[in-house]
């Protein structure tokens, strides 16, 4: 483990339409860590990951990748370091599954360069890790909602960023696929210097995969180790609704009363 965090955030404040969502948030995401962002609707989860991705300017604060302020990095340089999965993806025009996954290679290619066999291989591996092997030539628009979500995840993995920022990666996925997809993401953090920050709605999945967490809600934000943040008492405050802990091990969860 190196001393320089993949992502560091100091004094981060976020506002949307004059509404303050977060003030003075500090945290460091280091390689090998899985961070989960939880909170009620409208708390600012999407705004937070967009800001961390450098796609939305925060009201205040300093965000660094590998110790370098993101303002000093060109969009292309950022795209080689961090990947971002939006909440919804759109397909305006027909494209095959393989073409869609290859889009992730864009920041690594020069302006006149075409994808190499190595790029295709990387995209195929990413597709296979999300259960989409053999669908290369299918029109992406004919896939089911769950398949399209996994295709977007595969494109992100093909991009090969060391910091993965994901807005609800488990949406549109059935229960088994949620676990399979999050297992694949968590496996990426084992070696290779990668780290994951993802928004999750399901507190069971959050407890299962997070080693660190950020809870947003009621203009407050708590960031820290999962065992301190994802507790019944802390999250009851954040959600404004009493929660109780149930189960243990991989079936541990927090349920509303």
């Amino acid at each position, binding site marked *: 483990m190196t001393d320089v965090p993949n992502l560091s955030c100091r004094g981060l404040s976020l506002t949307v339409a004059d509404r303050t969502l977060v003030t003075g948030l500090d945290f460091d995401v280091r390689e090998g860590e899985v961070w989960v962002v939880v909170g009620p609707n409208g708390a600012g989860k999407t705004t937070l990951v967009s800001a961390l*991705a450098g*796609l*939305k300017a925060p009201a205040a604060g300093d965000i660094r990748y590998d110790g370098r302020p993101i303002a000093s990095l*060109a*969009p*292309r*340089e*950022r*795209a*080689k370091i961090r*990947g*971002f999965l*939006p909440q919804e*993806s*759109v*397909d*305006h*025009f*027909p*494209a*095959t599954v393989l*073409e*869609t996954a290859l*889009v*992730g290679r*864009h*920041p690594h*290619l020069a*302006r*006149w360069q*075409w994808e190499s066999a190595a790029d295709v291989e990387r995209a195929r591996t990413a597709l296979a890790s999300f259960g989409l092997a053999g669908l290369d030539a299918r029109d992406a628009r004919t896939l089911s909602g769950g398949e399209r979500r996994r295709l*977007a995840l595969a*494109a992100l993995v093909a*991009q090969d960023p060391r910091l993965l920022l994901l807005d609800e990666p488990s949406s549109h996925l059935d229960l088994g696929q949620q676990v399979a997809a999050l297992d694949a993401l968590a496996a990426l953090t084992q070696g290779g210097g990668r780290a994951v920050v993802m928004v999750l709605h399901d507190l069971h999945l959050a407890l299962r995969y997070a080693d660190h967490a950020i809870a947003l809600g009621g203009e407050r934000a708590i960031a820290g180790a999962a065992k301190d943040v994802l507790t019944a008492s802390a999250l009851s405050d954040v959600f404004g609704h009493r929660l109780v802990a149930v189960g243990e091990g991989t079936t541990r969860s927090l349920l509303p009363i």
Partner: protein
Amino acid sequence: MVLSFAALAALVMALAVGSVAIDGAVILKALTGGDGQTETAIVRELRLPRALCAFAVGGLLALAGALMQALLRNPLADPYILGISGGAAVGALGAMLAGVAALVTWAALVGALVSTLLVFVLARTEGERAPWTTTRLLLTGVVVAAGWGALIALLLTLAPDAQVKGMLFWLIGDLGGATVAMPALATLAVALAVSFAFARDLNVLSRGEDVAAALGVPIGRTMLVLCALAALATAAAVTTAGSVGFVGLVVPHALRLLMGNDQRLLLPASAITGGTLLLLADTLARTVAAPVQLPVGVITALVGVPVLLLLLARVRS
């Protein structure tokens, strides 16, 4: 490759067919030097410039259409969707009405550029990533085009009867007066080279602005450069041949159905196919009802409308 051969064949045919039929050997002689005979003169001075104009105009329109469809992420966008042809038409018709025939081309060019600027200034917003959103651009373009439409109607109403026919030919699109091909051909070459450099950015943009921004595509700059390029291509086309319809809409659309949406293939293929089709259409236009020469826009519309309806029916199913 196949497309390039088709383009070459169409060019030879355009040079051969007409009120005086000319065989291949003579065409070759005309192209390699000419001997002062009537037939070589016809090829060198009449048919070749017109054929090159037709190819350039068709290529420009199809390329501009492909760019607009990709930029606005709307498969039914065409080069005129932002009101460019309306502005050019008002300029050209205004010059005709004022009796300065020599300035028609320049007036059309100024009209096209003014219209483009107008749309981009009016549609400007405080966007998160780009100062323009596709919806606002489209809406503004449609409204501005409607305004130009009203002005065109006004000019046609005010014009003396003798001038109306010439104005109508301009509006439909006509290569009868096209003699100088170099500006349009040069614009086509430049536009193709520049847009090809942005082709992969366009591929990424078709996955949505969120994804494109995350992958490092500078959305605002890409849109500005490519919209300006499409506007310039369209302006070069309409100033050469008037507002020829349907080539810019149908060609990229049909090619996308045939070969997918990789812009690195789609953009050059659109340019070549558009050029070839307009060349064929123009050859047809000046021969089918000879000695009457039809405006080429009539042919492209007559062919384009059923083709487009067919494509729409396919998309629906």
